[in-house]
């Protein structure tokens, strides 16, 4: 049944995305670890981490596109789930430092010793175990999203009002995590990581392994999202995006559908954050900043909302632009980002993938006679689904 679910989502677009990701997963390690440093095909470890960071953002964009593109929920707080996943991973990495911290306390992270705390708070228990931290990476963002969505969707908060409270959610978390007595390192956050699963976090092989793990997480999430969208549940989501009350009168409890997609999306964002933290080496409250969530919305808009692959493309392209601009012309970056968003909204309402779709749709359609012959292939796909 699980296999059928994954196969259902495998269309041509999914094929292209997964092929590119598979090539990255093989080529990047080879080019970094085995191609000699003086060869033009050599990739530095710095570049690998940068690419890994882009792909974490791509996973966040994919998660956002699932709710924005397919359920019409414009979340302006998705970075909150990303950051919570990041903190869960950061807590594990802090516990791995052990007695190698500045204060040499085997039990407590440095910032707790500095605050004169004598024992580990209860919510840090278990984070010395990787499996527990990995579970929390999914559970904490997922549970928060479930609780938030439960109240918001039951109360039928929609549209711009929902967007505003998602923004308020991430802002509230930003303020909370800034506080030292929250026990998450205050505004310095969590950093100075040493090991992950017993491997040196700075080592080249660890960095490459983290990159490959990110590619794998992105590919798996893409397949899950694609399978969900292709299923009947996905069709209900698209239907309720455009005509929610009609779907309700058809007997679908639209709140639970939105809650499903919303919580799934939050879990994916959490995984993205968890992979991001070991690659950049720090997590602090600035990840909760409303601007991070808004940037994620821009990635999806640029790439193409409601296409899944568009979010990935947008996240990678915009962040490459950001890396270039903040190096070359730092004061211009925000203008470029704002201008990009305005330009995409005005001229490319369906994003880059939408533009591609328009161009390719125009060319071959000249050869097709009438819309009627289309009836046959669609009927066949309906037949395959049941097989």
């Amino acid at each position, binding site marked *: 049944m699980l296999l059928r679910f994954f196969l259902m989502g495998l269309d041509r677009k999914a094929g292209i995305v997964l092929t590119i990701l598979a090539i990255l997963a093989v080529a990047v390690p080879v080019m970094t670890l085995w191609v000699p440093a003086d060869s033009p095909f050599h990739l530095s470890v710095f570049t690998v981490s940068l690419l890994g960071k882009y792909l974490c953002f791509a996973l966040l964009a994919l998660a956002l596109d699932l709710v924005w593109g397919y359920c019409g929920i414009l979340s302006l707080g998705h970075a909150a789930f990303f950051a919570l996943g990041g903190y869960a991973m950061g807590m594990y990495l802090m516990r791995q430092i052990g007695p190698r911290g500045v204060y040499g306390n085997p039990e407590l992270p440095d910032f707790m010793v500095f605050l004169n705390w004598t024992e580990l708070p209860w919510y840090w228990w278990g984070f010395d175990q990787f499996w527990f931290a990995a579970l929390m990476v999914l559970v904490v963002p997922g549970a928060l999203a479930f609780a938030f969505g439960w109240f918001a969707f039951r109360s039928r908060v929609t549209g711009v009002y929902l967007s505003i409270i998602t923004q308020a959610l991430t802002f509230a978390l930003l303020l909370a995590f800034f506080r030292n007595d929250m026990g998450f390192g205050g505004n310095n956050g969590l950093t100075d990581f040493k090991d992950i699963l017993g491997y040196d976090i700075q080592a080249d092989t660890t960095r490459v392994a983290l990159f490959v793990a990110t590619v794998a997480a992105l590919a798996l999430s893409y397949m899950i999202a694609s399978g969900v969208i292709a299923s009947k549940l996905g069709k209900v989501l698209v*239907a309720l995006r455009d005509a929610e009350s009609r779907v309700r009168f058809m*007997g679908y*409890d*639209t709140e639970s559908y939105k809650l499903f997609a919303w919580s799934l999306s939050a879990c994916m964002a959490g995984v993205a954050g968890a992979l991001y933290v070991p690659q950049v080496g720090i997590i602090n409250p600035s990840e909760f900043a409303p601007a991070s969530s808004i940037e994620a919305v821009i990635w999806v808009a640029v790439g193409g909302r409601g296409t899944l692959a568009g979010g990935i493309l947008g996240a990678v392209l915009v962040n490459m632009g950001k890396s270039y601009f903040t190096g070359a012309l730092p004061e211009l970056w925000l203008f470029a980002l704002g201008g990009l968003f305005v330009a995409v909204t005005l001229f490319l309402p369906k994003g880059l993938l939408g533009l591609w779709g328009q161009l390719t749709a125009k060319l071959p359609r000249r050869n097709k006679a009438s819309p009627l012959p289309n*009836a046959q292939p669609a009927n066949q796909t*309906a037949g395959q*689904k049941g097989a």
Partner: protein
Amino acid sequence: MSAESTLLYLDGVSVSFDGFKALNSLSLVMMPGEMRAIIGPNGAGKTTMMDVITGKTRPDTGTILFEGQTDLTRLREAAIANLGIGRKFQRPTVFEPHTVWDNLELALKAPRRPLKTLTYAISRDDRSRIEEILDITRLSPLRSRQAGSLSHGQKQWLEIGMLLAQDPKLLLVDEPVAGMTDAETEQTAELLCSIAGKHSVIVVEHDMSFVRALGVKVTVLAEGSVLAEGSLDSVSANAQVIDTYLGR
């Protein structure tokens, strides 16, 4: 009359919006398999009546029973729809990004819970049922067209097809022939008559020739309550009805 044998039983239902009484102690009884036409001037409460039956609006007072036992005033829209009450809106609302086939597949009577739809695979029975509805609604050649690209009349038909797929016990139809050509109106009347019998149908309509073509019992609403009930000829002869509605 006892409520037990009825399909739908409304007794003393009142709804007011900011002091305006949209429904004023409305009482109405529908028997299983019955078809009923509701007419009335603008603001008579026709749409509000549909809203309270389908759970979109909560009545202030009154009883609404389905099949003599289920209290509809306590249920949410989706739960009411799952009891077997379907609704067709005035403006055709089909799911425009989806194909005609997918629209019908979504409407088709099947488990509605998220985990069931996530793992749903279309069965042989479901497929032949959709084929059947495509034939009834004459949309067979358009099955893989996007619903958004259909003409107005075709959308109306698709929506009726979706209601057939939903297979409700009671069907509420709001102005089904608004904006249709004469030929389409006639076909729609035929279609609705063929549905009645297996399903109970309530039709709200302004078009008198359409109501006449249906040839069913008529209820006239005015100012939120029932003014007259009977055949179209008898209610058209009613002096009060002529005053409030036909006379205008």
